[in-house]
């Protein structure tokens, strides 16, 4: 009951945001967080659940963004079709990247994804007939009623909720348990019959799909994309959001995304420090709180509302014991 009430309250807050948000800028930030979250929710299955450290999802984001801009802009496809296609193309690229690289051990995999992000930037610049090269591409807006700040916010919110629901289902069902087992000990997972490679690959392809979708939404929020938009630092940012929020949780990375997107906007000195700040946060979390800030939140909740274990004093019952001993002897 209580959980349903909290969920309903959260839903009401999120849906009504356009009415109580201060202005369009704050609404824009909220929508940007939503677009990031669509990607991060999928990436969370890869990083937080299956433990594959991909720092290069910004490459998949760029692919989704360019796919949308090219299909809906240059080729004037239907916007929704283009949106779906950018998700599909993201998934396909995720498959192409995942097939060879997911067989690699941890550091090799991280470097492969880093290289992938650099290659995408390189190809975007080289294929200027398609992508506009350095000049970039203008991104078409969503049609009415999603062309206003509030409209696009609601659309992104809707997609984000669906994606979250999907990942939540994966996380709490057998799949998610299997992925966590892969993360914590690949050998054990293999031994108990988790199809390791298959599980990792499916999670990775799903993250490609959400990265493609997120890329398209992000592109619409930006209204214009150039290769400069998709810096490696952005990939690092996604990654840091998950680690800081806490791996193996959904709420944690979500809080991480919100806080890390909003903080530099609110505080100019933090914005100036830029990556130094992200690096410091990452280091602190890894050293002091490897379970992430989400865990801190959980502990705080438990402090506030300690779990009642109920007192059940156990009295010795010599008579019963004697009976049992006798039964054993017989």
């Amino acid at each position, binding site marked *: 009951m209580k959980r349903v009430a909290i969920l309903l309250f959260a839903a009401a807050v999120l849906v009504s945001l356009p009415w109580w948000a201060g202005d369009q800028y704050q609404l824009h930030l909220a929508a940007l967080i939503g677009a990031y979250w669509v990607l991060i929710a999928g990436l969370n299955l890869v990083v937080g659940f299956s433990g594959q450290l991909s720092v290069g999802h910004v490459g998949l984001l760029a692919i989704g963004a360019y796919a949308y801009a090219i299909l809906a802009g240059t080729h004037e496809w239907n916007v929704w079709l283009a949106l779906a296609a950018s998700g599909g193309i993201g998934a396909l690229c995720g498959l192409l990247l995942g097939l060879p690289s997911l067989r690699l051990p941890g550091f090799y995999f991280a470097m492969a994804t880093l290289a992938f992000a650099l290659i995408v930037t390189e190809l975007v610049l080289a294929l200027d007939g398609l992508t506009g090269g350095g000049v970039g591409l203008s991104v078409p807006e969503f049609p009415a009623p999603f062309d206003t700040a509030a409209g696009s916010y609601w659309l992104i919110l809707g997609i984000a909720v669906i994606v979250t629901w999907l990942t939540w289902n994966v996380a709490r069902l057998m799949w998610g348990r299997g992925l966590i087992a892969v993360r914590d000990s690949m050998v054990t997972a293999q031994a108990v019959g988790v199809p390791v490679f298959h599980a990792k690959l499916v999670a990775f392809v799903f993250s490609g799909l959400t990265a493609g979708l997120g890329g398209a939404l992000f592109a619409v929020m930006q209204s214009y994309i150039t290769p400069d938009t998709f810096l490696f630092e952005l990939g690092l940012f996604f990654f840091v959001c998950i680690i800081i929020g806490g791996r193996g949780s959904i709420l944690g990375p979500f809080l991480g995304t919100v806080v890390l997107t909003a903080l530099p906007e609110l505080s100019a000195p933090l*914005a100036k420090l830029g990556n130094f700040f992200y690096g410091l946060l990452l280091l602190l979390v890894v050293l002091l709180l490897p379970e992430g800030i989400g865990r801190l939140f959980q502990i705080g909740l438990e402090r506030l509302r300690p779990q009642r274990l109920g007192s059940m004093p156990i009295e010795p019952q010599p008579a019963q014991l004697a009976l049992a001993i006798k039964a054993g002897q017989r």
Partner: protein
Amino acid sequence: MKRPILSHLRAGVGALALLVLATGVFAQEPIRIGWLSSLTGPLSSAAIAENQGVQFAVDEINRAGGIDGRKLELITRDTAGDPTKAVNFAKQLVFTEKVHFIIGPVNSGESLATVPIVARAGIPNLVIGTVDELVDAKKYPNAFRVINTNRQWIDGANTYALDVLKRRKVAVIGDTSGYGTSSAKTAAELLEKAGVKPVYSVLVDPNKTDLADEMNKAKAAGADVIMPWSAATGLLARLLNTRGDMGWNVPVVGHPALMAPPIGKLLNKPEYWGNTVAAGYVSTTYDAKGKLPANTQALIDKLHDRLGKSEIDYMLWWVALGYDTVRIVEHAVRQAHGTDPKAIQKVLANTKGLQGVYATYSWSASQRNGFPDHQIMMNQANSFKDGAYRAAR
């Protein structure tokens, strides 16, 4: 004795009226200028110099009592050269700070993203990025470009190479960054329009450690002028070093970054900077007698008053450009008698021959590029002195 209630009321109303009057006369709403500047990150050197000019002009106007009694309030946001941050800050300036003008951003990649957003909000935008696609009288009627276009730089350099140096075998070298690829493409197009097909053209990674191959290939292709289009000082310095080490005395003609002061320090020998010509401005070029245009000299004198007598060690035109953007705001507000965006747009669209330090600006109903072609001047790259240059012979 009690005073009647009415008298209290009357006194109150009187005070209120006075207050209203006072705010109306003495404390009008300030004119808020949003300044999107990449003060950190790549290309920060240009932004820092521009920022000096902007700050200086704002202080100067405020000290003189503001514009029609309204003070200027400068709201600076550091985008660090990141388009995503630039978009966020543009929305913040437009919707939260409710600025009357936006100046910037500095980098083309950022501007391409922010100009449409500011246009949709209807706020006047003074554009200081050079990419040609940035302004469009129909799509973005409120965006007015103050700086020259990329095409104007390239045209100036091409004309110099083809007509003054009488060279026909051109090698075009761009870098693989967004700016480099698009500039190199435009340069090749403009050359072909002039009837010259480049004998060699190549894109180079800006961090490539060595340019010997590219220069050797250019030489083998018979190039008699090298035209680099890149803002990466490291790459340009390597190019000049390679040319010098090869002992190849071919002229290098191209992007203004060729004459940025940091290049001098990256060169193996000072003389490697000779025979190098870069696109610059009439306003920051010494004439035959070693004098600068009067407006520029006046700005230098004022800067010296403020910064002390030491030599100016950055490119002066960035300062002049920043200074002019605020002066254009002043011009627009004075002519429009206020900050109504529509009136401002009308004033700017009908501005003819507005004298600035950096250039003389004219915009029209169909033309949003304010910088006139003839104020581009080719400079000798190694002639830097006190922020300005000598003309190329």
